[in-house]
């Protein structure tokens, strides 16, 4: 067993696990943060997307020991209290989900996408960037709508602040 230390959603945490333990299992089982999902287990579906040191990654394809020392943000770390993150609010507003299984990964992917592209997101880019996230319910239309709406709002908010 190896000691893994992470900063998860701003909180320093540590736990013991085998070297072969996947980051997603460490997050779900050791830390009890079950918002991050395991969909395919083959690096394709993106339900397990979290941010590691500010970048979106698939936590089912990273060992917990590999991530040790890094800063992790999971879906649980996005909202501030009862106030949803703008991307979460946009998914709610635009009905960007049906069963909800892929949603944590979709939202974490969207936050990363908006961080990288800012207000310059267009529909084609959003669809291309969703390559690593699979949804079996929505047909993606409302997910794309949600992300564009959030990008607009977040880009607009940034401009207003400047």
């Amino acid at each position: 067993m190896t000691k893994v230390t992470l900063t998860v959603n701003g909180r320093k945490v540590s736990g013991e696990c085998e070297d072969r333990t996947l980051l997603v299992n460490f997050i779900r089982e050791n830390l009890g943060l079950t918002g991050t999902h395991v969909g395919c287990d083959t690096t394709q579906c993106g339900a397990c997307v979290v941010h590691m040191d500010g970048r979106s990654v698939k936590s089912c394809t990273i060992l917990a020991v590999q991530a040790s020392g890094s800063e992790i943000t999971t879906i649980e770390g996005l909202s501030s209290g009862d106030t949803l993150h703008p991307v979460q609010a946009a998914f709610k507003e635009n009905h960007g989900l049906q069963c909800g299984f892929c949603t944590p990964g979709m939202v974490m992917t969207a936050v990363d996408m908006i961080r990288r592209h800012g207000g310059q997101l267009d529909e084609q880019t959003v669809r291309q960037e969703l390559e690593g996230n699979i949804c079996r319910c929505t047909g993606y239309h409302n997910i794309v709508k949600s992300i564009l709406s959030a990008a607009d709002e977040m880009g607009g908010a940034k401009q207003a602040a400047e």
Partner: protein
Amino acid sequence: MYETNYHRASSVDEAAQLMGNAGEGKYLAGGMTLIATMKQRLASPSDLIDLRHIASMKGITVNGRHVTIGAGTSHYDVASSEALRAVCPALCHLASHIGDPHVRHMGTIGGSVANDDPAADYPSAVLALNMTVKTNKREIAADDFFVGMFETALEDGEIIVSFSFEAPDKAAYQKFPNPASRYAMAGVFVAKKGSDVRVAVTGAGSNGVFRHTGMEAALKAAWAPDALAAVSVDAGLMMADIHGNSDYRANLVKVMAKRAVAAAG
């Protein structure tokens, strides 16, 4: 996944030393292939030597037309490097189409090239851009590096440290991704530098990435998509599987090569 022992190296020398002490060790770069393979129990290294925290293996330097890319540089960092885009946008384009955004944040150029998957994108760039592969032991010319499917000139324990090349005058990469896996069914990287032309094909060859000298000769004579019309691509050298037979792949290679020349301008 079978049990394994994880080690984090902070320098290239330390990594080589850790590998020397390991039983059946494997270097771990971004892990986007290796971890997935281990999960399927298709690989079971006794030890993993993590290279991701070796600072000297990361980053891109562009000096005039001379480019050096650390082996530990992620696909995302290659795709988004403004310095590289200014001299060789084709390589940024290639990197921006590997896997998906999350995979590009972890996967590295060194990991991809060392693994030498026959459908990987980077090997075609290494060959077409005539890169020099620098390891912890020596420098290897691109033409001597790729041996066959998943097989390179790397010796046991040898680590790729960086890649370097002179930026071409024109270059482009075009691939036809498998509709399901998104791996290249045929990917062609063309590069023109002075009177020299190199054409490298990935995803299609039954022995991994290769240069197509017939297309190189045709493009040396005339740099235009139509110059490839009369060149034949030997279907006997192509892979065949449920996704496409060898005639189909041979045709794809030619179509991708034409598109690449058109894209390079």
